[in-house]
């Protein structure tokens, strides 16, 4: 387990050097994207921003407009598994190097991480206020027609803390812990 401070955009070699269990603090640009955004990309629309080397944050933030700019009031991660059907495609077609979310993702995404060089970064579920503090600026927004939580927000973050739970070597902490805990609970089973 190691600690890294990384700035987006990320290059493939850096991402491939990360391992499950590593702590990664992200600084720089993050784009939010969740169900409606992934679905729209999946059905053929090109994303409005260049995602190459970037990270998509599974998050529907609470934004308020102050004068002519936006302020983020709450921005914890949302459940990632809903993007399982599409995420690998976004890795393949647009070169994203990672996603931030919660709860982990399945085998398609894990394969995608290994094939295209990407990682799954787990944020702390429910920590809406801490995450909002790491977001220093909101620089823009696209696809507002999807509704504010589903839009693509251009965030600028500093030291956004995550843990690698799926790496580019085919390892998933979620899979490992599931198997280990299953065995432990089996040994403790009541009869």
């Amino acid at each position: 387990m190691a600690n890294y401070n990384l700035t987006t955009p990320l290059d493939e070699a850096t991402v491939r050097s990360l391992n499950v269990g590593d702590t990664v603090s992200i600084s720089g640009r993050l784009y939010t994207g969740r169900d409606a955004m992934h679905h729209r990309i999946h059905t053929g629309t090109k994303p409005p921003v260049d995602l190459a080397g970037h990270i998509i944050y599974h998050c529907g933030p609470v934004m308020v407009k102050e004068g002519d700019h936006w302020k983020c009031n709450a921005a914890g991660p949302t459940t990632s598994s809903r993007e399982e059907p599409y995420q690998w495609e976004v890795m393949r077609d647009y070169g994203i190097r990672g996603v931030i979310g919660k709860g982990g993702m399945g085998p398609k995404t894990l394969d995608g991480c290994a094939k295209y060089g990407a990682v799954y970064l787990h944020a702390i579920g429910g920590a809406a206020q801490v995450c909002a503090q790491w977001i220093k600026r909101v620089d823009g927004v696209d696809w507002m027609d999807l509704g504010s939580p589903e839009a693509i927000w251009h965030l600028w973050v500093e030291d956004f803390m995550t843990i690698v739970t799926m790496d580019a070597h085919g390892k998933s902490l979620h899979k490992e812990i599931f198997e280990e805990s299953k065995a432990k609970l089996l040994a403790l089973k009541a009869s």
Partner: protein
Amino acid sequence: MSATAQQAEQKAVDPALFETVLELIRRTSTILPDDVVRAIETAHATEEKGSNADVALNIIGCNIGLAKDKSAPICQDTGTILFYIHTPVGYDQLALEEAATEAVREATRIGYLRQNSVDSLTGKNSGDNTGPGSPVFHFHQWRKPHVEIKVMLKGGGCENMNAQYSLPHPDLGGRDLAGVENAILDCVLQAQGQGCGPGILGVCIGGDRGTSYAFAKEQLLRLLDDTNTDPVLGDLEKRIVDKANRSGIGPMGFGGKTTLLACKIGVANRLPASFFVSIAYMCWAYRRRGVEIDAASGAAVGWLY
């Protein structure tokens, strides 16, 4: 309804009750109850320093403090809004429901609650947390002179981890305590970190499918450090927490010693033909609070939790 009619209806609600429920919602969404904070701190102390579990609980601790200081929602998912209300005999429950619904609308406008109520057919968000089935009201009468309102905000991530088992079950066992225990622990295994653990379980043994889930959720109104009045259930609660915490799932499913903060189990009678075990999984952002209200004035006379 026209805008003017709506305004008239808004004005018609009892202003004192409205204010009391609004403050109850603010406190619930922004300040985690003491018993929960204590349980998280105790759990945190057991985790190895520098581990991923430690990192997660550190951030959770910071988040609890920040939300309180900023009077902002602890988690952006402010969940299903569940009211549990006791009123004296003869009290106007409809007036209370109207005032509470209006308070929910106002709390949503202010931002203590997220716009969280979606039409299941059209997908349209009502924008104010009201609509068929939301918020949820459970009314009961009692012979005490005052009104008691408890409210719980239960997020979607953990609600999706709820589970109901029908015993006997080929892998988990029969209609006995061992079968019940194995069913509850299977729910913990399946949930892993996806319910934003460390979690708290409310469990009901028995009932029909509907009442069993409702009663399981009601168990979450108990204090975390209380003792079950039934020693058999008390022992089972302890066993569940102990075994879950030996599973190694840990906070957020990162691995670690804290998988559950507590387990609260109740029983309801069942039909001879059925045996349900229902589990309500609550996340660490365990938001539930209560208030005692003077029936005549609508003012708060005491805060609960």
